[in-house]
C-alpha cells in the first residue's frame, strides 16, 4: 500500500499492440504486476499476445473492430478482472470518451483525465489555455479572415513573413507563405482559391511563419499531489511529411539556460491545466531561440526511450505509479541529463516506392547489441507483419557520452541491424546519420525535404 492509501494495481490490461505493448508488459513484469494482452485475429502470434500473462482476442484484424472498439476492450477488462488499462500511444490513447468510460466503469485509465484529454485535443482551446497560462504561442489571427483586406490587416499585426492557412486545408493545400506586403494579395488569393475549389470553404487563418524551425518537445511528469517535473527536451526535427523519423535528446540547439526556461514554461503549462501523468509539450523553436507552443500530447510518446536514456528514469513505470496514486519518484533538482541519446524508427516501408508500407514475413533478423544499445521491437524471426496496422516495427536507441559518440554508435548499430523479407527504411536512416549537416547538428523540420526529395 502506498502513502495515498491505495494499492498498486494487481493486473493491467494493455490496450495496444506492437512494440509499445511489449514495452508496457515488460515494465509490468518488472513491477510484479500481471498483464492482460488484447489482440486482434491478425495478432494471434504477435509478441505482446504471447508475452503477457493472459491474452484475450477482441475481434477481427481491422482496428476499428478491435483495438479501437471501446466496448470490446472494456468488456475484456471486466472479464479478465484487470484494474487498470494502459492505452500506449495511437489507438484509444487520446480518446477522451474512452478515458471517461474507464472512469465510469471503475477501471483506472493510465493517463490524464478525460477532461484534460478533451481540452488538449481541441487545438483552439489548447491554444487559449496556453495563452492564459503565459505560454508563448505562434502569433496569429484569433478569428478567421475571409477577405484580402482583413487578411492583410492581420498579417501586419502578426508581422511578416506569415503563413496563410485554409481552415479546412491539409497536406499543404490551401497553404501559402507570404514574405511581405507586396506578395500578400496574390498568395492569399491562391490559397483561398485552392480552399474554395478543394474544400468549398473560404475560411482562412493568418499566422506568423517560422522560418527553419526545430521541433522541440518537453517531457513532463505530473502526479496527483501537485508535483510536476520536466525531463528535458527531445529534438524531433527530422521529420518526413510531419512524421517523426529520428529523435534525439538533448537538443544541440538548446543551452542549459534555455532548457531551464523552456522546461519551466512546460511545467507551468502542465500546472495550468492541472495535468496528471506523463505528457509532452511540443514547441517550435526559431533560429533566434524564440519558442512557441504547438500542442500537448496527453500520452506516452514513441520517442520516450531517448529521454529514458539520458535521465535514467523509466517513464512507463512512472506512469503506472502515478496512476496508482503514488508521488513522483524524483524531484526536479534530482533530474540530470547525462550523455546523448538517438532513436531511429525502423518502418516496414519501401523508400523506393514513396515509403509505401510493405508488410510481409521477416525471414532473417539480426539485432545489434552491446553497451548503450537498446532495441524496442515486437518482431522476431519468421514473424509475419500484418498489413492492418502502423508500419513501425522497431526502434533502435543508442546512448553515449556525447552527440558525436552517439552518432558513431548509431552508425555502427544500424550497420549491424539486419531485417530480411520486407523492405525497410534502414538505408534511409543510415543516410541521415551520415549526412554532414546532421552530424554538424544543422537541422530543422525541412531537413528531409531538403536532402531527400527525388
Amino acid at each position: 500500500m502506498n502513502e495515498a492509501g491505495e494499492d498498486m494495481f494487481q493486473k493491467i490490461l494493455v490496450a495496444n499492440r506492437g512494440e509499445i505493448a511489449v514495452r508496457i508488459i515488460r515494465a509490468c513484469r518488472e513491477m510484479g504486476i500481471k498483464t492482460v494482452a488484447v489482440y486482434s485475429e491478425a495478432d494471434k502470434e504477435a509478441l505482446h499476445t504471447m508475452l503477457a500473462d493472459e491474452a484475450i482476442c477482441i475481434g477481427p484484424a481491422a482496428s476499428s473492430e478491435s483495438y479501437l472498439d471501446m466496448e470490446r476492450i472494456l468488456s475484456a477488462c471486466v472479464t479478465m478482472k484487470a484494474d487498470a488499462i494502459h492505452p500506449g500511444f495511437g489507438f484509444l490513447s487520446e480518446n477522451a470518451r474512452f478515458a471517461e468510460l474507464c472512469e465510469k466503469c471503475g477501471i483506472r485509465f493510465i493517463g490524464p483525465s478525460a477532461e484534460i484529454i478533451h481540452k488538449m485535443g481541441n487545438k483552439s482551446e489548447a491554444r487559449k489555455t496556453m495563452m492564459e497560462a503565459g505560454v508563448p504561442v505562434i502569433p496569429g489571427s484569433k478569428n478567421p479572415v475571409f477577405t484580402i483586406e482583413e487578411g492583410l490587416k492581420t498579417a501586419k499585426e502578426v508581422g511578416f513573413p506569415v503563413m496563410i492557412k485554409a481552415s479546412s486545408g491539409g497536406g499543404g493545400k490551401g497553404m501559402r507563405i507570404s514574405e511581405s506586403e507586396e506578395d500578400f494579395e496574390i498568395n492569399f488569393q491562391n490559397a483561398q482559391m485552392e480552399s474554395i475549389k478543394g474544400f468549398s470553404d473560404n475560411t482562412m487563418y493568418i499566422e506568423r511563419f517560422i522560418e527553419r524551425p526545430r521541433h522541440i518537445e518537453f517531457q513532463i511528469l505530473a502526479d496527483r499531489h501537485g508535483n510536476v517535473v520536466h525531463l528535458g527536451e527531445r529534438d524531433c526535427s527530422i521529420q518526413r511529411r510531419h512524421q517523426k523519423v529520428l529523435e534525439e535528446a538533448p537538443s544541440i540547439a538548446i543551452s542549459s539556460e534555455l532548457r531551464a526556461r523552456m522546461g519551466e514554461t512546460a511545467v507551468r503549462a502542465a500546472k495550468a491545466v492541472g495535468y496528471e501523468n506523463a505528457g509532452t509539450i511540443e514547441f517550435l523553436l526559431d533560429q533566434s531561440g524564440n519558442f512557441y507552443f504547438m500542442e500537448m500530447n496527453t500520452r506516452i510518446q514513441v520517442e520516450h526511450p531517448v529521454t529514458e536514456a539520458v535521465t535514467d528514469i523509466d517513464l512507463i513505470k512512472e506512469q503506472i505509479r502515478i496512476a496508482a496514486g503514488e508521488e513522483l519518484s524524483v524531484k526536479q533538482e534530482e533530474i540530470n541529463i547525462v550523455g546523448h541519446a538517438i532513436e531511429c524508427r525502423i518502418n516496414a516501408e519501401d523508400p523506393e516506392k514513396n515509403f509505401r508500407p510493405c508488410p510481409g514475413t521477416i525471414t532473417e533478423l539480426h539485432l545489434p547489441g552491446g553497451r548503450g544499445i537498446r532495441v524496442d521491437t515486437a518482431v522476431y524471426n519468421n514473424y509475419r507483419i500484418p498489413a492492418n496496422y502502423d508500419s513501425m516495427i522497431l526502434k533502435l536507441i543508442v546512448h553515449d557520452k556525447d552527440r558525436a559518440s552517439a552518432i558513431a554508435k548509431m552508425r555502427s548499430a544500424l550497420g549491424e541491424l539486419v531485417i530480411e523479407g520486407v523492405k525497410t527504411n534502414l538505408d534511409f536512416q543510415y543516410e541521415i546519420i551520415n549526412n554532414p549537416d546532421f552530424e554538424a547538428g544543422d537541422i530543422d523540420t525541412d531537413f528531409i525535404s531538403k536532402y531527400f526529395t527525388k
Partner: protein
Amino acid sequence: MLKNMFKKTYTKIDTKYHTNTIPADLWRKCNKCGKPIYIEDVYENHNICPKCGGYFRISAYRRINMIADADSFEEWDCEMEISNPLQFPGYEKKILAAREKTNLNEAIVTGRVQIGGYPAVLGVCDARFLMSSMGHNVGEKITRAVERATKEKLPVILFACSGGARMQEGMISLMQMAKTSAALKRHHEAGQLFVSVLTDPTTGGVTASFAMLGDIILAEPGALIGFAGPRVIEQTIGQKLPEGFQTAEFLLEHGFIDKIVKREEMKKILTNILKLHNGRTEYAYDAKCSQRVTSVSQLKGTRQMKARIRSAWDSVQLSRKTDRLAASDYIGALFDDFIEFHGDRYFKDDGAIIGGIASFRGIPVTVIGQEKGKTTKDNIFRNFGMPSPDGYRKALRLMKQAEAFNRPIICLIDTPGAFCGIEAEERGQGEAIARNLFEMSSLKVPILSIVIGEGGSGGALAMAVANEVWMMENAIYSILSPEGFASILWKDSKKAGEAAKVMKITASELKELGVIDRVIPEEEPANRDTLPMITEKLKQSMTEFFETWFDRDAEDIVNNRYDRFRKF
C-alpha cells in the same frame, strides 16, 4: 511459435481481484446493427446510432427540442379528457398506463413554435404512446391546431409517426382521417403552408390522411412508410417483399416524397422552407451587382462584340456540347437557398427534371429545369434530359404549388425532346405534355421560360407556355431535330446542316419571328469558367422581368399569356 515459452514473473498471490462494477445504464444495444453503443454518444448524435447510422425513434419533446428555437414552444390542448366512444373494456386503463409511462396526455403534442425565427404551428407524434395510433383525441388535437393555424395565418408542420387508426375507438377513429383531411383542405384553400414530415413508422390511416397531404412532404432516412403494413401485404399476396420496400427511399423513387432530410439537417431545411414561404425579404435592385458586370466586361476588353455571324448548324452543335452549362449550373449561380423537391405524387421521380424552391434576390420563386447530366452515370439517371410523363407531372405539380403560394416560376429548358419509349407511352406522354400546356396557360403567377441549350419540340414547349420566353445566344428551339427534319423531308439525315439553315431555329431568327422575346448574350465558350459573367447578365435581365411582372394582377398575367400564344 514462442507460445508458452516465456516464464511468468509475478510473485504476488492473488488475494483480491478487482471486481469491476459497470453501471447498467451506460450502454444500449442498437436495434439495427445489434452493436453495443454508449448512450451519451447516441444522444449527442441526434439519436442516431454512431456505428451503423440507424435512426432511433424519438420522443415528441426531444423532437421539439431538436427543431424549435430555445424556449419557443407553447403547448396547446395539453389536457384532454380520455375519449372512449365504444366504452371499450380496459381501454381507459391502457391509456392511463401509457400516460404514466410517457408523461404525455395523448399520442401527439401540438402547439406554437418558432423555428429559425419563423413562427409555425407544430404537431409531433410520439410512438411510445400506444404506437401513436390516431383516436379521437389525436385527430382532435391536429384539427384544432390546423384550424387555429388557418385563423392565425401560420404554417403547419406535422411530424407523423403512427401505427394507424386506434382500434379501441372503432369507427370514431376512422372518422379522424376525414376530419383532419378536411381541416387541411381549408388551410390549403386559405393559401397557408402545410409541411408533413414522415418518420419511422408512418402507416395505415395516418398515411391515408394528413401525413400524405403536405404541400411539401419530407421524410427521415430509412423510415417505414406505407398504407398496409409489410407483414399484412406479405400474408395477403403470399410473396416475399423486396429489400427496401416501403422505406422513405422507396417512396422518394416512386414520387411520393419531396425530400429525404437527415435528422441533423431537419431544422436547417425547415427554417429555409419557412423563410421561402414568408414573403419577399429584401427585394431591391442591387446597384453593386450591375457595377460588377461592367467591370467584368471591361476586364474582357474588346473581345466581347466580335463577329458572331455563324451558321445555324454551329449553334446546334454548341447547344449540344457536353460541357455546356446545364440547368443545375444556372440554378446554383442565379438563386439562393435552393431546395430540390422530388416526385409527381403518382408514380415516379423523374431525374430529367430538377425542380424546387429558391430565392432570387430575396424573392421566393419556383425553379424547374431540364437536366441532361454531366457524366455517363448522371446521363443515364437524367435520361439525357429527355423527360418522362412523370417529369412533366412533377413540373406541373411544382407550378401548381407555386401558384398556391403566389411565387413566380422560372423554367430552364434544355432537352433533345420528350422521352420516346414504351413506358412513356404507357403512362401517357402525350397527355402529360398536353396537360401542361392546358394548365400553364391559366396559372395566376408570372412565368419566365429560358431555353438554355436545346429546346426540343413539344418536350420543350411543355415548360414554355410562359409570359416571356428567352433564349441563350447559342441555344436552339425547334419543331424537330435538324436530323429528323432532314430525314422526313429529304430522306437523308446527313443533310442536317442544310436543314438547320432553313428551319429557323436559332435565337436571333426566333426573335425575329416573335416566338421568343429576348436573346441573352453568352460569353464564349459558355462553360463553368464563364458562368459568373453569363449569369450576371442574366440576373440583370431577370431583375427587369420581375420589375415588369411583379405587381400585375393575376387576371392581367393570365390574359397576357393567353394573348402571347393567341397571336400565332
